[in-house]
C-alpha cells in the first residue's frame, strides 16, 4: 500500500508541477494582484469575486464555494468528505483580518451538520472556527490553516416506567483540531491549484489520526 501511495502521490505532484511550469512559461508579464489560488487557500475573495474549489485527497476531500460580500466579508459553503463515510455540509462566513502585499489572514466560522456512517454512527450539529494564513509570492501561495471543530452528537434515552414513558436527550462532544499546510499555485488569474497536507485529529485527544494529503483545483472570477 505504501508503495502504491508513494507512486501515486509522487506522480500527482510531478504532473501538477510540470503543468505549472508550462503555465509559468506562458504567464502574462504583469503579476496577479489577486487570483483564484490565493482566494481559495487564503480565503476572503474581494467584494464581487468568487472562487470554487474542488480538493480531492485522502482521507479528506472538499468542495467549497466562496463569494465576497464586501472587501472583508465572505459567504462560503463547504462539503467535506472523509473516505466517503463521513460528511460535513457547512455554511459560514469569512472575515479578512489582515491583508498586505505578501500576507493574507482570514478568520472563518462555519456551522453545519455531521453525518458519519461507520460502526458507530455519528450525526449532529457541527461548527468550526479556523484561520487561514497565506503568503502569496507571485504565482505561489504557501498557506497554513489552523482550526478547531466541534460536533455535538445527540443520544436518546427512553425509560418505560409503570407510570409512563420518559425520554431524555444527552449530547456527546467530538473535538477535531485541524491543521493544513499547503502550497497554492496560480495557473492563471482564474484557475489555480493547490497541494496540501492535512491533519485532522478527529475525536481528540482520545484517538489516533493519520495525516492526509489533497490536491485541489480552483476556479475564480468576478460576478
Amino acid at each position, binding site marked *: 500500500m505504501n508503495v502504491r501511495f508513494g507512486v501515486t502521490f509522487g506522480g500527482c505532484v510531478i504532473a501538477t508541477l510540470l503543468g505549472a511550469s508550462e503555465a509559468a512559461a506562458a504567464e502574462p508579464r504583469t503579476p496577479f494582484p489577486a487570483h483564484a489560488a490565493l482566494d481559495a487557500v487564503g480565503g476572503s475573495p474581494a467584494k464581487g469575486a468568487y472562487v470554487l474549489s474542488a480538493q480531492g485527497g485522502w482521507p479528506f476531500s472538499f468542495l467549497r464555494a466562496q463569494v465576497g460580500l464586501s472587501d472583508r466579508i465572505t459567504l462560503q459553503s463547504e462539503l467535506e468528505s472523509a473516505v466517503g463515510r463521513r460528511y460535513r455540509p457547512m455554511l459560514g462566513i469569512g472575515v479578512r483580518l489582515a491583508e498586505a502585499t505578501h500576507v493574507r489572514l482570514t478568520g472563518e466560522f462555519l456551522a453545519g*451538520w455531521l453525518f458519519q456512517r461507520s460502526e*458507530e*454512527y*455519528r*450525526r*449532529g450539529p457541527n461548527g468550526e472556527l479556523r484561520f487561514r494564513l497565506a503568503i502569496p509570492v507571485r504565482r505561489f501561495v504557501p498557506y497554513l490553516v489552523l482550526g478547531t471543530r466541534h460536533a455535538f*452528537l*445527540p*443520544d*436518546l*434515552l*427512553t*425509560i*418505560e*416506567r*409503570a407510570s409512563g414513558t420518559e425520554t431524555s436527550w444527552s449530547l*456527546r462532544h467530538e473535538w477535531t483540531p485541524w491543521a493544513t499546510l499547503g502550497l497554492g499555485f496560480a495557473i492563471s488569474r482564474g484557475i489555480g491549484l493547490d497541494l496540501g497536507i492535512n491533519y485532522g485529529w478527529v475525536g481528540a485527544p482520545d484517538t489516533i489520526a493519520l495525516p492526509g494529503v489533497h490536491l485541489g483545483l480552483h476556479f475564480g472570477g468576478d460576478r
Partner: protein
Amino acid sequence: MSRARFVFAGALGVVLAGCVNEETRLYEIELDGKVAVPDGAPSAGAVHLAFHVAKTFGEGDLEHPLGVFETRTVAGVGPVRETVLYPLDEGEGLVVYGWLDSDGDGVHCAPGQTEEPAGLVKVAGFPAHALSFSLTLRAPCVGPESLYP
C-alpha cells in the same frame, strides 16, 4: 398551534429523529424478592446480586445465555426490593444471580475460601414492571454460567 408552528415542530422532530446516535431503551422493573440460604447454613454477610438478561440477542453464533446489566449489594439474606432498568434491545428474559460474601472481602471465593454459596433464579412473568423472585444460595463458589441454562 398555528399551521406554521405545527409544520416547524414536525420538521424539527423529523430532523432530530433522523439524527439520533445512540438510542437506549430501558424498561423499569421493581423486583420484590427474597434471598435465602438452606436451613442451618451460615447466613452472615452481604449479598451481591447480578441482574442478567436470560438470553442475549445476537445473530447466529453470537446469541448466548446471560448478560449482566446491573449489579447491587444488599445487607444480607432476607427480603429484597430493588428497581432495575432492563436494556430492552440487548436480550430477553430476566435472571437474578447472587452470592453470599461470608468473609466480607468483596471477592467471591478468593483462593482458600470455599464456603461462599451462590444461587440463580429465572424470574417468571417477564416483562412486567413489578415482579417477584425467590433466590436460594446453595451452590458454593460457582458463577452464573454453572447454574444457567
